[in-house]
């Protein structure tokens, strides 16, 4: 029985219908991949979040922050208000004095980054509260930038941090040191500090840390500008390059805030989340977008690549919870983090959150990006096989369709030119990568505009050159496309494991590349080329900027900043994978006269 099955399977290889299937298969993959993603927010496919790490024990301790601590807080708020508008150095002096006042060791660190022509420089001040009975081998961090994410002064946050520091000093049950970090602003300062803490900093830009403690186990950042009473808590968890903290941290903080303190929490800016399908889908897409861009979302983002789980807490809305409630949330979270014996590892590191308490894990969502990448690979293999077939004359086509494929007639493939084209276009991608990361910020928009123009015209020039000098055959054009799609499929499937959202977005935007083919008629070719220009990377960039209501220049400056300061590799994916594939695809469509 098995022998007959295998025999029939083997004979299927020579069936002519096999060659027709791949494009449909490819299309099916894309469709399924897309639908897969869309059904994830449903109840059947997503799960409620739960605490995986037994050691966390969130919400099991009484929190005693309150009472007389409120007076201390008010005093610190006055001092912080007096510092408003002063320069970093003076602010840090005051903070250092306050911290030293209740017995915390203080260190300072200065940094200067150059990115997009502008300099980002500043000075961090931080204090280390040593655990009286601990062994100083681990530490947890409370980050409180002087400026919030949207640029205002983090007054209540800083005052609260100082009060909490003083309060924590009185307890003897810490098993880890507590580090209080006050960077001047949330994006650069934390990165400089974390890099220097792990001795991974660039000595030209960042000075080393005078004081260090043990390995960092977790971090919480406070973003609390104004002192009105709030109602909900916004948890920001996105990290650099789309890495996410362990889900248990979000679960623990959400549990403590929600179940112990009665403060509901939300994510991705969806403060009016009604738990409907649309809300969940929107949350998921916003999460995917920020993950795909990979840029910094708050003071916590820089910790995550070092495998230190971190989130930013932002009180939100008008309600009746005051700073003491926020302080208690932080105290409860720190008591939970205190219980840990090792890094959080039980829960997921790769997940998509639909709402604060619904998620899907990587095993559930990865197939969608993989299917998208697989479609390119299928097309690549299909084109390879096709290119290996003997070219038939027009007349014999109808006759030979019905007979079995004569596989002994596989032709030799001439691969030098296609490989050179693909390799060349990928190498060419280094140019925009280099340019856009080095140019000063004010020149960037103009340079980008020029580049977009060149990018549209480039395929025309290349195809003209190729057809006039090399006279490529159909087989060579097939091989070109095959190699290009192969590289695209490979890169996207690998990227899916690192940054699912980026892979998915690029894959989705590049899907037309697998279906366009060179045709005989000239107008059709031009039509295809025009359509392809719509999905060119520069075009997408302009469209995205318009849709977000931002300036393209800002987008580019952020990208340059990400690359130079934070080590974001999204530009590599765009200029090194996507744009070359698009170029080769457009060249293919335009050029390659038939043999």
């Amino acid at each position, binding site marked *: 029985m098995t022998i007959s099955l295998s025999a029939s399977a083997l004979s299927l290889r020579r069936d002519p219908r096999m060659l027709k299937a791949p494009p449909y298969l490819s299309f099916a993959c894309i469709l399924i991949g897309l639908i897969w993603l869309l059904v994830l927010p449903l109840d059947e496919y997503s799960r409620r979040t739960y605490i995986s790490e037994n050691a966390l024990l969130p919400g099991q301790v009484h929190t005693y922050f309150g009472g007389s601590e409120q007076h201390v807080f008010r005093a610190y708020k006055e001092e912080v208000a007096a510092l408003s508008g002063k320069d970093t150095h003076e602010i840090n002096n005051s903070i250092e004095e306050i911290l030293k006042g209740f017995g915390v060791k203080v260190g300072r660190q200065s940094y200067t980054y150059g990115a997009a022509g502008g300099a980002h420089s500043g000075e961090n001040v931080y204090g280390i509260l040593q655990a009286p009975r601990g062994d100083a081998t681990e530490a947890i961090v409370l980050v409180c930038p002087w400026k919030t994410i949207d640029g205002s002064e983090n007054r209540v946050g800083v005052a609260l941090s100082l009060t909490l520091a003083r309060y924590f000093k009185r307890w003897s049950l810490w098993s880890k040191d507590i580090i209080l970090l006050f960077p001047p602003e949330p994006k650069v300062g934390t990165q400089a500090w974390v890099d220097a803490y792990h001795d991974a900093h660039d000595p030209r830009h960042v000075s080393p840390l005078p004081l260090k403690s043990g390995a960092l186990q977790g971090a919480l950042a406070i973003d609390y500008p104004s002192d009105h009473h709030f109602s909900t808590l916004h948890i920001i968890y996105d990290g650099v390059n789309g890495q996410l903290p362990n889900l248990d941290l979000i679960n623990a903080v959400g549990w403590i805030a929600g179940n112990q303190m009665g403060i509901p929490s939300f994510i991705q800016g969806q403060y009016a989340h009604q738990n409907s399908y649309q809300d969940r889908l929107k949350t998921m897409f916003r999460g995917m977008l920020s993950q795909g861009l990979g840029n910094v979302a708050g003071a916590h983002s820089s910790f995550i690549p070092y495998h230190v789980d971190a989130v930013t807490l932002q009180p939100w809305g008008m309600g009746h919870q005051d700073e003491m409630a926020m302080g208690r949330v932080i105290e409860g979270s720190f008591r939970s983090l205190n219980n840990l014996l090792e890094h959080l590892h039980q829960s997921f590191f790769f997940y998509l959150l639909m709402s604060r308490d619904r998620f899907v894990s990587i095993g559930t969502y990865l197939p969608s990006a993989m299917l998208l990448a697989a479609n390119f690979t299928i097309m690549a293999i299909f084109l390879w*096989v096709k290119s*290996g077939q*003997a070219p038939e004359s027009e007349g014999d086509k109808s006759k030979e369709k019905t007979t079995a494929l004569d596989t002994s007639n*596989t*032709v*030799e493939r001439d691969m030098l030119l296609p490989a050179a084209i693909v390799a060349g276009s990928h190498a060419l991608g280094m140019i925009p990568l280099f340019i856009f990361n080095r140019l000063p910020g004010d020149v960037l928009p103009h340079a980008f505009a020029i580049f977009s123009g060149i990018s549209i015209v480039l395929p025309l020039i290349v195809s003209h050159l190729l057809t006039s000098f090399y006279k490529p055959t159909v087989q060579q054009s097939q091989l070109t496309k095959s190699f290009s799609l192969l590289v695209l499929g490979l890169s996207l499937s690998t990227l899916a494991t690192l940054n699912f959202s980026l892979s998915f977005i690029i894959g989705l935007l590049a899907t037309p590349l697998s279906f366009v083919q060179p045709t005989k008629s000239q107008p059709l070719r031009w039509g295809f080329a025009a359509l392809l220009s719509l999905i060119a990377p520069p075009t997408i960039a302009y469209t995205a900027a318009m849709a977000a209501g931002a300036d393209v220049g800002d987008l580019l400056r952020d990208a340059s900043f990400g690359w130079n300061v934070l080590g974001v590799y999204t530009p590599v994916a765009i200029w090194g994978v996507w744009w070359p594939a698009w170029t080769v695809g457009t060249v293919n469509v335009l050029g390659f006269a038939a043999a």
Partner: protein
Amino acid sequence: MAPPPSGPTQEDTASSAAASESPAPAAPAIKAPPPETPTAIRRRSYIVLSFWLLVVFLGLPFWWKTTTIYRADLPLDRMLEWADGKACRPAIPIQIAVHADSLQEEEANHLVRLAQHAIDDLNDFSGHHLRLQLAPRQDRPRESEQNPNSALSIHLKPGDATTAALDPYRAALDITYPLNSVPPLHSASSMLTTYIATELRSTFAEEQSIVSYLLSSSPTSKPAGLSPAVVEALEKRATRALRYAPTYHLTFSLFTDGPAPTTWDIDTAINEYMKPLLDVLGPIHNFTIDTQVQLYATPGVQSQTLTKDDLASFINAAEWPLSPSIGGAPTINFLTFIGNQTIGFPDSEGQTSQSWMIPQWGTVYLLSQPDTNSHVTKDALRQPMLTFGGHLLTLLGTPQSGSLPLRLSSLSRIRSADLLLRASDALGSLARLSRSLPSIAIPRNVADGVAKSIRHLEEACAGLGSSEALYHARIAEEEAERAFFEKSMVGQLYFPDEHKIAVYLPLLGPVTVPLVMGAIKEIKRLLQARKQRAQEAKDKKSQ
């Protein structure tokens, strides 16, 4: 030239042959790879064969040797024989020397013979029998040295009446007989011999009952007609007496629930009251002594008159430091508690007591002293010390009846029998263990220990009744216990078969797959070659 990717490989030779016959198609001809030379094929076979030889002749034995558990050979049958009592019938012969210097030699011999018959008739337990022997005449007085082989000497002296008395200083029985009671040479029995026989029997009655009780726990001997009352008393002895150990650690403690007394004359008290006893026990046990004083030690029960139930909770085990881990010897505790409490008996009025013995543990003595005394004198310690001495003998399992030397030699014999049985038991347990747990390793020294133990057991069994029996039995028991409690014989933790698969499959799987595939390919090729040769031969024949 790149080979065709989607064409079948096995029909390469056939299709290339076919292609070369049919007209070449328009596309450029495919160049098939040249056929393999015979030397190449042979080389491939040799390579595959060499791998397999390596695996079979080097790998397998290596793996076998390193994963088998070393189990030394134990003489399991012999050990089980000893445990079942079949290897040795423990029989304690008691040699008794009869000194009858005032009788004629023939008369004395006759007397001894008759007495032996009488004893044998009375004895119903074969494990313990008395052997009478006439000692050679001596001209020296009675205080000469004793025959070391005999457990008891009977000194027959003429006197007024038939009396018998145990000598308190040595193991000797003085029997006086009126002159007319000597049996004539041809009589079959006589009053005197019957009397001697009954006296001897009653002297050794306790020892015999203890030994028979001991042996009754072994499967082949049965208790020889002991009455239930006696059996119960013997069980009591068994629960009370400590297990045999060559050294015991004695702890003398003074506890008081107040601040006084703080000192006591324990050193002189021990030297005067305990030392002599410990010295005479020397051949059988060694002793180390420790003393301590504890103040403010409140007992578990505070009432003035203690009942028997209170006594069990009198010792405040939670707070009193009583069991030091000094050395490897078991501890016997002798506690003196300074207080005014007494023990009352609910059923008998007026009767009180000051001390009690805790089985297998020690003794407590309540000593009352005036509160102001801060020192306990030697005289005050006299009564406690005497009690302790008596209890020590009981705790060691000494029989209660008879003179002190006789009791001690009985103890020695009883202990020899006890140790013999324990050693056999240990050997039996070891044999059963090694059979039931096939996965534990049995190192070399266990086998050595067992051999040594069996050797000493044989010697002990042969010499039961003599003084060396204790020495051999002690070594036999020690060796058997050490062999059983061998440190490295912890049973290998239970590994279900899934674990074994989970360990071996990832290790050996990737290696075996190419080997097996290679072997299969070679075998297929051989078969095909053979078929082809057969075909060619047939073709040639048919041509």
